[in-house]
């Protein structure tokens, strides 16, 4: 019997998800022994035409990482959807929009201006922008164009499963691959990670006070971070209470607060609103002016609470018609 065929693809991503696959270490040998990798542009020489030549559903499963923000990415994921029996959104960006999704706080023109005009390392006095179409002596060339709004994978194609994390923890990848190989799959649309909050398995759990009474919020560089005490109790914006577990609390173990890459648990619709709620209420002050002052110390609430989930939040993007940035 021939081995099941597997594909990997990346859209708007940083390459960290591919790195996570390499991080499987020896386990990758088991995976490679069990499956045929038929498409993985990041690691091997495959072309789009190889995918086009496949029969429908020829791939057993395709793992797609990265947010969808260009017409080329949209075409590719639509094509892969046709050729794959199962599509797994791999990592925060395809699950919730991820870091690229923060572009949704701005317009496309604003994003291009920041990248091609105002960036420190950019010298572009004529403000030349990439063109979708251009002519040169040998003929005509085309480039993909960006969408106004960054999208998560399930906002553009039907997705069977979600592997959360930035990048997904190795343990969860192995579990997912093995479950697919054995055909022991959960209900369609499931997030392949435990459905409990980070705090539940956090090694610092015992030092979390019954009631959080914070006087001030800090960023990690502003204080000497205690290695054992609950990070939230130290005033750091640790989003553990609202974030799904499954990563063995790797950030807290590394003495850094959770930033929420694993996304929300199933009881939450809008991760950022819930995270804001959890953090705001832990402030120990009943005084208007003091509350305003302390909240002002959170420099970028949208970037803090919606760091990985802006495109799939209730708002999806900032309101630009009403004078947003």
């Amino acid at each position: 019997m021939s081995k099941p065929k597997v594909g990997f693809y990346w859209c708007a991503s940083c390459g960290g998800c591919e790195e996570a696959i390499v991080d499987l270490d020896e386990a990758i040998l088991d995976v490679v022994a069990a499956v045929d990798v038929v498409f993985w542009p990041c690691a091997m020489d495959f072309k789009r035409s190889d995918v086009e030549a496949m029969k429908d559903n020829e791939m057993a499963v395709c793992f797609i990482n990265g947010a969808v923000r260009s017409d080329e990415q949209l075409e590719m994921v639509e094509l892969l959807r046709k050729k794959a029996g199962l599509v797994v959104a791999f990592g925060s960006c395809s699950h919730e929009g991820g870091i690229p999704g923060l572009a949704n706080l701005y317009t496309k023109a604003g994003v291009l201006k920041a990248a091609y005009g105002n960036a420190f390392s950019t010298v572009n006095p004529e403000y030349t922008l990439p063109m979708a179409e251009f002519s040169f002596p040998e003929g005509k060339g085309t480039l993909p164009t960006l969408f106004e709004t960054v999208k998560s994978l399930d906002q553009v194609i039907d997705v069977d499963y979600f592997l959360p994390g930035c990048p997904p923890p190795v343990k969860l990848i192995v579990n997912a691959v093995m479950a697919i190989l054995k055909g022991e799959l959960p209900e369609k649309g499931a997030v392949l990670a435990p459905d409990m909050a980070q705090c539940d398995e956090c090694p610092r759990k015992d030092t979390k006070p019954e009631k959080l009474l914070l006087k001030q919020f800090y960023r990690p560089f502003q204080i000497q971070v205690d290695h054992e005490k609950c990070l939230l109790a130290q005033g750091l914006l640790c989003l553990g209470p609202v974030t799904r577990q499954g990563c063995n609390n790797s950030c807290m173990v590394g003495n850094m607060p959770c930033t929420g890459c694993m996304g929300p648990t199933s009881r939450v619709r809008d991760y950022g609103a819930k995270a804001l709620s959890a953090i705001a209420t832990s402030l120990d002050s009943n005084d208007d002016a003091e509350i305003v002052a302390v909240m002002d110390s959170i420099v970028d609430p949208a970037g803090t609470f919606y760091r990985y989930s802006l495109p799939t939040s209730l708002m999806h993007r900032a309101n630009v018609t009403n004078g947003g940035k």
Partner: protein
Amino acid sequence: MSDPIRNGSDGRFEPRIVAFFCNWCTYTAADLAGTARMTYAPNARVVRIMCSGRLDPQFIMAAFRQGADGVLIGGCHPGDCHYQEGNYKALRRITLLKKLLSQFGIEPERLRLEWISASEGDRVQKVMNEMTEQVRKLGPLHLEPMKLQHPGAAASLSHVKATPVKEMAL
């Protein structure tokens, strides 16, 4: 601009306001305003909640996303909360949420938190009128509908299958 619901007979913009009133103080005050036959702007749809501290910021986001031009929250005066400190929790959340909303291009003035006790029917009248006027000045909140290629994706984060926001027209 010809939407009859959004524009009164005189062509004036009629804002849509969602008001979340706490059961113990502000809702009772609104009741009092009603029995006292006080008249005030009819623009707010009042939702009764047990405590302003129960107001999940998700509700406010959903209200704006689904067409509210403004959101008004009424709770007990500081120190008077039926549940000790629910109103303080609301105050902390709303303060931070206003900051976040401005990053989202939604004017913080569209969100208002007011303390109104059960006996202050006249204050409900005043606040309702003020809020309506304030939002009218700001104009309609044009949140662009999201065009999502995949039709199943309306509210689609997989883990939200059973949420009431499913019917959102995105």
